[in-house]
């Protein structure tokens, strides 16, 4: 669906898109605590798995808020400059449900998104880093 000059299209000509975005349902987990079991929490784990925050991708994640989810949350919060709480707070969930690129943030377990330094090249025998 392509919209040339969308601001010139009368609103009544635009399609009715009231469908819920795929991740909007995650907002219902606000305030969910470690150890709790919530229906659908496995889908949030699948989300984190898709973007590299949970390294293994079992065929069926559990609906329990376990240590693996808490660890994934902390890494995600660090990468997106959020308070690192390991909890499903409102700001974290607002970030999670945003549309995004499908490429993983963490590839092959290597997370350099918010490491403070970005590794670049081995050049003349020493490891060179560049500050952000």
């Amino acid at each position, binding site marked *: 669906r392509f919209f040339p000059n*969308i601001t010139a299209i009368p609103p009544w000509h635009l399609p009715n898109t009231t469908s819920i975005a795929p991740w909007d349902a995650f907002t219902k987990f606000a305030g969910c605590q470690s150890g709790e079991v919530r229906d659908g929490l496995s889908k949030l784990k699948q989300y984190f798995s898709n973007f590299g925050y949970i390294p293994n991708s079992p065929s069926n994640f559990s609906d329990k808020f376990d240590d693996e989810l808490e660890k994934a949350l902390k890494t995600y919060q660090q990468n997106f400059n959020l308070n690192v709480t390991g909890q499903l707070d409102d700001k974290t969930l*607002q970030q999670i449900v945003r549309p995004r690129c499908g490429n993983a943030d963490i590839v092959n377990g290597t997370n350099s998104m918010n490491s403070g330094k970005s590794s670049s090249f081995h050049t003349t025998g020493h490891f060179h880093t560049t500050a952000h």
Partner: protein
Amino acid sequence: YTFFPGTPIWPANRRDLTYGFLPANGLTDEVKAVFTRAFEKWSAVTPLTFTQTDSFSSADIKIAFYSGDHGDGEPFDGVLGTLAHAFSPTNGRFHLDQDENWVVSGDVTRSDLPSSVDLESVAVHEIGHLLGLGHSSVEDAIMYPTISARTKKVELATDDIEGIQLLYGSNPNYNGSTTTSNTQERETNDGEA
């Protein structure tokens, strides 16, 4: 900025790259022009050049819109959610979700369609992946992973330019003046700027 593991780049003998569109998508010249503008953002700061070709099969960069499962193990999910993905050098595959409401021109921030997504903004981001950049945690950077609906963000930030110039060097004509961090945003949910 970050790089993919192993820091893959286009080799020195492949710096003049071609891009082609999946013929089955039947894209108009107006849509194709959006990608041309997106490639120009990166060629302005690097020695890389990008030329459109009619031969999809032989193009270095293959641009295609797909819906749902399209065979690469990364299915699209309908309106919003995942918008697009692209592969690291020298794979060249650039896939976009056909089900999005892509805005090609006009002011996307004034759109009455809540799920409007600015095509050029997403294209500039994905080209960064095709050239070897990973995601950045700098919110103003093009390579930041998320973009809200009805948002336009097409100018490379300092973080993007530093990253890509570490990989390929600078365009001899680049004088630093294209570095901007202007981000036009209109959030759909929380009203944040």
